[in-house]
């Protein structure tokens, strides 16, 4: 049984598809990108992480339970935030729990 040829398939056949014929330049660039990522993440960044100022920054965040990569307040880690309440007419600060 023949399957109907879609407009998309025809267009791919006509124009040529990157997926079917990745050229040599593309493969070399892809390999170079992968090598660069591996070198950067496995060698350079771990070395940068040992620099005193960077280490101090990382250790401080870890000690306080801060997640600096949080996208939204619910991901901020152990930081609960505060709210102002009045106890016996006097302003008082109390912590907010975020369910962490």
């Amino acid at each position: 049984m023949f399957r109907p040829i879609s407009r998309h398939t025809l267009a791919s056949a006509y124009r040529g598809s990157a997926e079917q014929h990745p050229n040599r330049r593309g493969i070399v660039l892809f390999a170079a990108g992968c090598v660069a990522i591996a070198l950067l993440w496995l060698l350079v960044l771990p070395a940068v992480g040992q620099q005193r100022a960077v280490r101090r920054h990382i250790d401080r965040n870890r000690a306080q339970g801060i997640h600096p990569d949080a996208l939204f307040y619910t991901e901020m880690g152990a930081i609960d935030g505060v709210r102002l309440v009045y106890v016996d007419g006097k302003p008082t600060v109390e912590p907010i729990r975020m369910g962490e």
Partner: protein
Amino acid sequence: MANMSAAEAQAEPELAPAPRWRIKEDWLAILVGAGLLVVVLGIVTAAGEMTADGLTHPLKGQISKPGEWDSSPLEGMTRWSGIVAAWLVLGVAGLAAALAARRRLDHFVPGMLGVLALATLAYVLAGQAVVKHYNLEYAIWALGIGLLISNTVGTPRWLASMSLTEFYIKTGLVLLGAEVLFGRLMALGLPGVCVAWVVTPIVLITTFWFGQRVLRIESPTLNMVISADMSVCGVSAAIATAAACRAKKEELSLAISLSLMFTVVMMVIMPAVIRWTEMSSVVGGAWMGGTIDSSGAVAAAGSMLDSTALEVAVTVKMIQNILIGVVAFGVAWYWVRYRDVDAAAHALEPSAGAGEIRGPRPGIAEIWRRFPRFIIGFVVASILFSLLAGSGTFGEALATSTTGVTKTLRGWFFCLAFVSIGLETNFRMLAHQLRGGKPIVLYLVGQSLNLCLTLFMAWLMFTQVFPHWVAAMD
């Protein structure tokens, strides 16, 4: 997101055909998002354990993502069973989307495994300690990995078949809605509302106006996404507004790249400026909370000062985060009511200048017909979970323990979305958006206004109008 022009379509790598959905994509996103929320809430209601620390969800820690590592990525993979569980949940959601979008099922398994593997790699790259603690979030690495593939060897069709960007974004946004709890709004009382909810809309609207009228940015959607991510809360606001105004994928990519770049700089410089000027911790914390885009970076910057600055900064950011629901709804309404009809009218008379032609304003019924449905899901999730959290201690525990689990899934959905965007984007399309440097100028002008207005409001509210606040914190 908007359809591309013919010229852009020519420049795009060959991908899977545009899906013809059996059920509207927005409704599917709502169904999947709501289904996940109901299941997770049901499990904690039936089997949650109340301890001294609160309500513990049975699934807490059972669904996870790659963690932090220093020198070997394997350090971050200790929670591998949680990652497998997340893959399974996302796989089921992906299967529903593949069936609805009439994707080829023989492409589903390799395609889904492919995008999940790339998303996991993005999380691993983002988990490196230096990268993580300088706020270079997973979104940028997910995007980068996708771009590397699509612009070198090309995106294989089996992988492209599961690059369902909009489905992932919309489902993630419905889950995010449950985290937008309006009860948090009054955490800092009136001063907090003024800093986070008065300044932010002023900056958002002024920046958008500046981009349209002064810079004359070609794409209003790009202008809106940059304005929102700069004034509200970075990547999450960019995702929500981009979906609400149907921005192009490369516009979202550009906006988050800009935001993350400037966030790293502000996170380091602002605490130094606050120390140097001997600003009070409360005012300094509020200033940082209202201006630094990313929520996590706000906490990191606050910790560079002291615990008071940290707490105020985080609380102001939290209040500002809640604005995301109102902004997404407002932008969607504005686009349906004004922008879309004006653009349609302009298309009929292309010789007219921008802003010269106004289309007929649609009525309520027409607005409802065109309104992006997933925004309704987002807002309803927010209202229901706000009501639950406001119903008492147990209700709040239920809401927070549920979102404690779903936020991980929401992160995965967004990560899959950014991988998919990268797989569908050509570098030339990104470069085209940056032409003339207008987006960077827009960001800089908007952020400068944000810095000035927020500082003024923080000083006014915390030292002049409500000075007892500072006294209470000291």
